[in-house]
């Protein structure tokens, strides 16, 4: 019984222990296109054997050290190395003034926790430390990059004053168990967890943090990329870069690829709410959208989290939630009714509404549409969203404190907003209707991506020289079901 090369290749691939099922077809230009359902047990086993988490961290560490050594873009003792923060859209450094806004708003958030004894995990070259430490009694900064830490003493000297409260240590996030129990009232981890290799690693770190934080303390996890908005973000970046003549089907592929090869740890706000089911020490969770004015990916797609290990003494206010209608009607309600508190749900978010709409539109757009036409169509979409800054200004004009939450974790990126006469009112914010205890639903899986990419590389080498001519690249994708087959 003779077989054609396609069937032979399928058989060969299915003999590999990493492959459960394989489907091969030839593309129009006679290349092999391979779909693989991977053997999950094999992937998991490889992860364990390779100590993949550790390896990934070491790789980050190596590279951080390189990039901090020699060339340093730190300016005027700000602790901000603006040369290393690139925009996903332009791949150019994010402008300095935008990074300064990002830093200042983060510093403000952390200072609002009244920190006294602080541990900062991943303090880097010190953007937060240099601002916050002088207002505390004790500030321990740790980082896995020795080169980053080295830049801090010189900056402290440049700024002058006493820095006796500061100590610096080269350490990874998961090696803080040596600190005594209840050592700190505030633990800060800003723009750090995206380098974490896996959910397991995050849990290991959080467990240690909770142990060394005082029972009344808070954990600040800043600059988290919002997983609920990952599709909208992926499209927004790819659309920005796409040539006008590109077809929508090509664009779709790029977006899919970006989502499937996510190598950073990205988390939905719901993740932090669901953590309470696993860590009973967590009493309160605040999900704070960024409130900066600049239109950049930090403000639009990231948020800060405060985990409170003890409930506040104040009574929690459980307001009546009105659905958002229009800005005019809210203005009217505040101006005429002068309520003590006005709680608004599902406030459309002008910063991401276009991107969210674009993603929905992408799915139903005919394949032959060009990016140019796609953009033109999108331009016609009505926008109803409101910018958080607009509401902040409105509140300030009418004598209200305005606070925001992203805890509802909606994929449209809408906010909950409270206008309140009194300062520091603690609110019971809206949350998703159901929260799963299965944390992996709410986060990306960097080590899973790594293991699939490794398997793809293994398979390339496995088939090369056997049925596939040397140096010919085969297009391998991983799928859950093979195309042409029903579930």
């Amino acid at each position, binding site marked *: 019984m003779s077989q054609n090369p396609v069937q032979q290749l399928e058989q060969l691939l299915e003999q590999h222990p990493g492959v459960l099922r394989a489907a091969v077809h030839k593309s129009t230009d006679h290349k092999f296109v391979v779909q693989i359902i991977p053997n999950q047990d094999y992937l998991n086993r490889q992860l364990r054997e390779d100590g993949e988490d550790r390896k990934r961290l070491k*790789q980050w560490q190596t590279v951080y050290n*390189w*990039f901090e050594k*020699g060339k340093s873009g730190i300016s005027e003792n700000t602790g901000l190395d603006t040369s290393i923060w690139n925009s996903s859209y332009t791949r150019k450094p994010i402008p300095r003034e935008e990074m300064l806004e990002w830093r200042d708003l983060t510093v403000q958030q952390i200072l609002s926790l009244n920190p006294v004894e602080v541990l900062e995990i991943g303090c880097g070259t010190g953007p937060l430390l240099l601002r916050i430490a002088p207002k505390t009694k004790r500030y321990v900064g740790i980082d896995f990059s020795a080169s980053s830490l080295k830049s801090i003493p010189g900056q402290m000297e440049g700024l002058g004053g006493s820095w006796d409260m500061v100590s610096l240590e080269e350490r990874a996030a998961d090696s803080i168990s040596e600190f005594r129990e209840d050592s700190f009232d505030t633990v800060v981890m800003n723009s750090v967890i995206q380098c974490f290799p896996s959910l397991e690693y995050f849990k290991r770190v959080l467990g240690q943090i909770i142990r060394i934080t005082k029972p009344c303390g808070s954990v600040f996890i800043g600059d988290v990329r919002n997983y609920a908005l990952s599709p909208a973000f992926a499209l927004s970046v790819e659309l920005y870069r796409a040539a006008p003549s590109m077809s929508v089907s090509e664009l779709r592929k790029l977006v899919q690829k970006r989502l499937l090869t996510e190598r950073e740890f990205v988390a939905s706000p719901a993740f932090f709410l669901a953590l309470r089911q696993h860590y009973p020490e967590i009493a309160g969770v605040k999900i704070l959208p960024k409130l900066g004015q600049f239109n950049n990916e930090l403000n639009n797609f990231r948020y800060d989290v405060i985990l409170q290990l003890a409930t506040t003494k104040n009574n929690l206010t459980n307001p009546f939630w009105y659905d958002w209608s229009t800005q005019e009607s809210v203005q009217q309600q505040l101006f005429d009714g002068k309520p003590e508190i006005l709680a608004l749900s599902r406030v459309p978010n002008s910063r991401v509404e276009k991107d969210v709409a674009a993603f929905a539109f992408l799915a139903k757009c005919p394949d032959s549409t060009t990016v140019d036409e796609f953009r033109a169509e999108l331009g016609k979409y009505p926008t109803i969203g409101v910018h958080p800054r607009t509401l902040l200004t409105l509140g300030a004009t009418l004598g209200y404190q305005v606070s925001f939450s992203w805890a509802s974790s909606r994929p449209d990126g809408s906010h909950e907003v409270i206008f309140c006469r009194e300062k520091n009112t603690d609110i019971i914010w809206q949350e998703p209707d159901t929260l799963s205890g299965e944390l992996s639903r709410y986060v990306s899986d960097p080590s899973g991506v790594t293991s699939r990419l490794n398997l793809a590389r293994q398979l390339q080498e496995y088939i090369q020289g056997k049925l596939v001519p040397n140096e010919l690249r085969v297009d391998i994708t991983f799928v859950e079901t093979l195309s042409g087959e029903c579930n």
Partner: protein
Amino acid sequence: MELSDRTRIKDFIAGLLLNRDDRGAVEDSESLFVSGRLDSLSAVEVVAFLEETFGIDFSDVDFEIEKIDSIDHIAALIANPA
């Protein structure tokens, strides 16, 4: 042997550049990181690739990024890891 390793490296680098929409030609001697053509995220990928494919050990702290800054440098590193 030398040629084949170099091809794999070139292939890998081309893939990284393509991910950044960089379809331009790349000379074997051309700077990749110091020039800013590739960023730190790509550097992590290169480190992972060299560790996994060629067993290069990056744990030596004195390792400089210059050692992987071009295809020539990477090929030399693989040929003589010490």
